[in-house]
């Protein structure tokens, strides 16, 4: 499965290019409207073309991401996908309780993290040693909160609550709680 870093790099590139383009367009526009021009009329076709472009952009973003970000369809269809491993995790009084001290996962296993809150709304996120995010979800009390994930690379990850649950809960962190290992022979 494509790593979230790859997706974030792609997004950074696309959004940065867009920002630079719109800054240039607005700068150009600000300059041009202070100068006399020959043709001040905007053609209706330009307006309708722009509208069409917005429609295409708005719709295609989701189609593109659905077909290129592997966790998107997996997330929507997770009820039909059988997980290779399930971790039942609970959280109460600003403290995670894991089924084991360390959650050991093998590469390419489909793993379901099922988190239950017994009091407040929390978040559940996995983070790399450089603090970048692998994924997150909300943990709402009284409801099942589960996420299916497939790891392709070995690594050690920290669990952190990604939602504010009051001033007591700003650092609900379990350092190096998830370890993913790859067995080269099994992968081949």
């Amino acid at each position, binding site marked *: 499965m494509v790593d979230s870093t790859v*997706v*974030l790099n792609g*997004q950074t590139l696309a*959004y940065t290019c*867009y*920002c630079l383009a*719109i800054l240039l367009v*607005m700068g150009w526009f*600000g300059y*041009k*409207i*202070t*100068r*006399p*021009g020959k043709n*001040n009329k*905007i053609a*209706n076709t330009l*307006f309708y073309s*722009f*509208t069409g472009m*917005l429609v295409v*952009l*708005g719709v295609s*973003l*989701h189609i593109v*991401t*659905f077909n*290129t*970000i592997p*966790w*998107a369809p997996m*997330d*929507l269809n997770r009820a039909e996908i059988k997980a290779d491993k399930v971790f039942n995790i609970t959280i109460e009084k600003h403290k995670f309780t894991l089924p084991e001290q360390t959650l050991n996962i093998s590469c390419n296993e489909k793993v379901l993290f099922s988190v239950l809150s017994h*009091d*407040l*709304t929390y*978040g559940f996120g996995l983070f790399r040693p*450089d*603090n*970048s*995010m692998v*994924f*997150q*979800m*909300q943990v*709402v*009390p*009284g*409801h*099942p909160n*589960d*996420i299916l994930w497939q790891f392709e690379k070995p690594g050690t990850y920290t669990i952190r609550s*990604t*939602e*504010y649950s*009051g*001033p007591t809960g*700003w*650092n609900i962190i379990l350092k190096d709680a998830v370890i993913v290992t790859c067995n080269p022979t099994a992968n081949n």
Partner: protein
Amino acid sequence: MNFLQTLIKGEQALFKPDSLTPMQKLTLRFVVIGLVYYAFAVIEGMLMRIYEIQPIPAISTNQFFAIMTAHPLVGIFGSTYSIVFGAFLFLVPFLMKKPLWSIKLANWNFWLVTIGTFTFWFSGFLTHYAPLYTLYWPLPVDFSQFSVIGGIFFILGIALVMLGTVFFVINVFATITYTPEGWEKQPCGALIGSALGISGIRNLFSRNKKEHLVSLPVAAIARGTVDVALNSGIIIFTGILILVYMVFALFGVSLKDTAIDALLYKNWFWWGLDLVADGLVLIFVAGTWYLLATLITGKKLFMENIARAALFVELVVSWTVWSHHLLSDQAQPGFLKVLSGEMVTAFELITQGLAFFITLATLWSARPLKMTNPLKFLLGGLLGFALAVPAGIMQADIGLNRILHNTQWVIGPHVHVAVLVGLAMTLYAAIYILFPILTNGAQLYSQKLANFHFWGQLIGGVGMGAFMGMAGLHGMLRRSLYVNGEFNTYMILAALCGALLLLAFLAFFFNIVMSVGINGVIGIFMPSKLKTKELVPSQV
């Protein structure tokens, strides 16, 4: 005039508060209080920026999160609502060429928003009540973390603001529809139909096209006000619910918080809350762009009928997009995530994009234009939304939300760029254009300060949003603390941009005070000597 004389009497002593009508004074009071609360929000924002770099010993963690709770509420209700209410209570009658329906109600509106904002801010400051504006159930009633008394006063403060907001809604619609003394009977139903867009829809399917009875900016104000009304209803209901738990707790009875379904509550509350961010703000801003573009150019709006239709679509869209805030809630039904969270939300790119294009085309039709303060701030406001709306559309995607939700990306390039560049610069454009009308011809003290205000707001706002966004893309959460300097490079750069924003605001505030003088500022708060319902003095 020397500096001291200007400071006391204003630029060339042109501002005469005694010449102001009650309506002018009321509008200026709204603006002054709105700017004071903006200063509150900016200072709070700077405190949080510094705290994110290095926790300040004098501020406890509880206080930090109380600031985080108050900051957006003071910014939206205390500042933006005040400025918007003041401007629209003046503009609706001004554009319809008739007096405001009730200046008494507008005065109540002013005091309730002013006192209510101070009440919830002060309550949070003293008691550290900090459930954040999201109020995720059952955090607001978690009395193991928060004081009951603090919570009661906090909620009462919000309730006062909402009551003031209801008065605004009544006054806007009553002003549109009522018949002033000595006037021919006004067609109440037809006016409301035109304002809300019903007659526009009828025109689509009828051969007999009827003329619009209200101008486009008034239609925009009316449609945005529908969302204001719905939003205040949801907040009042939620406030009462929380208050019931608090009052019982005060008498030692602990109500079972599981009686409320946390996910259903989250849907309900986000539906109402989102009417601000994805409803009234976008509609009011589009309406203000159209008004500014026509005032600056003196020309008819480009594609006016489509602009009207887009405002109507935006209103309907604003009722159906709340689910993009719940894309990371796994129990939320998938169809709501896709339909409301992704697909309908994408319409905001279209409606806001159309407003952007129509405004630019109207400006283009009148070139060459002089780069006045209203024009440059209008362009800044357009740029702000051109940057912030696509950022929002990206995070309203099931795939991308998985790695963006609750990160600094959401609050940086999307929220702060939308608010500080898009919304604030649009409001500043309106203030600069209305300033001579509301002050009967007072002059701005310094154009250099106005220029610094523009560049400081633009660079500071875009820069802060960009550095927060970079931190978010590297995993920094928005409602958390990092005490080991994990994201310090980004946070220091964001704080520098924040400092520029603060300086820009101080330059603007100083410029306005020097323009009207301290006597003028005091005079705004004194009762008007003119006993008139007119908006501006007849001799002006």
